[in-house]
């Protein structure tokens, strides 16, 4: 199980979500912008830093590629999926509490 109950950063959340199906760096940026309707634009530096940390933590892995393929693709691991699901629950709790106190529709 994931080791911590701390919140993920927005960048990490969308990166994990983007690579449920394998993607390369630029693909992850495009997917993230698409998820957030252009609100979240990951810089290459931010993405690179997050990807290396996530690989180290074992939440994602780099796919082994043929020699003709130059771009590196990343995919979420089982551990990464568990972290992501836990985070979705946490976010739902936040949103539900927000709505019940402040009103607004579901």
């Amino acid at each position, binding site marked *: 199980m994931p080791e911590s109950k701390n*919140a993920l*950063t*927005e*960048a990490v959340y969308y990166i994990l979500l983007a690579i449920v199906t394998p993607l*390369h*760096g*630029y693909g992850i*940026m495009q997917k993230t912008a698409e998820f957030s309707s252009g609100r979240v*634009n*990951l*810089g*290459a*530096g*931010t*993405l*690179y*830093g*997050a990807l*290396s940390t996530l690989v180290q933590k074992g939440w994602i892995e780099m796919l082994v590629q043929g020699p003709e393929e*130059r*771009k*590196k693709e990343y995919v979420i691991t089982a551990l990464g999926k568990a972290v992501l699901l836990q985070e979705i629950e946490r976010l739902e709790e936040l949103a539900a509490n927000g709505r019940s106190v402040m009103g607004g529709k579901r």
Partner: protein
Amino acid sequence: MMKKVVFKPYWNYAKEEVWLNQMAKKGWALVHYCWLKYTFEPCEKGEYVYYIDLLEKHHNAPASRDFIEMVEETGIKHVASYMRWVYFQKKADGKPFELYTDLDSKVKQLRRINRFWTALIAAEFAIGFSNLGIWGTEQADGSAMAMNLYGGLLLVFIGVMLMTVAYPVRLKIRALMREQKIRE
């Protein structure tokens, strides 16, 4: 093609970046940098914007190559590198040229730059003051060498200059960390 070569020493990468962007606005695009030598080629006025970044390791290290490759995937061109510094070029599209887009990564990057300067400043002071110390003892036995005095003073002066360059970076880190207490 007509080229322009400019020799210019810069203390401060932020000012250097401003200058490169001004050159691009005037129609001169940086195509190469090596040892204080900047080579420009003509471009449309304001066609490109530039960004200077500090890598974790030398630009030839595998991790640095991976990073540069990822940056290039996004349509940004890697025009030059010098030790750990890299020069990136992007077609101007009205949007700011950023590689670090959230607080976390911005702070991390500024800290890397701050560490780089702190090490450099410490080295300037250490060598500078030890030269002055040597000059002091030479003074006592009558063999004082001007080189130790002036060399020492020069290094200490460079250290102080670099401190004035590093200070704004520290202020920026502090401001971002304050923001980080309430935001991601």
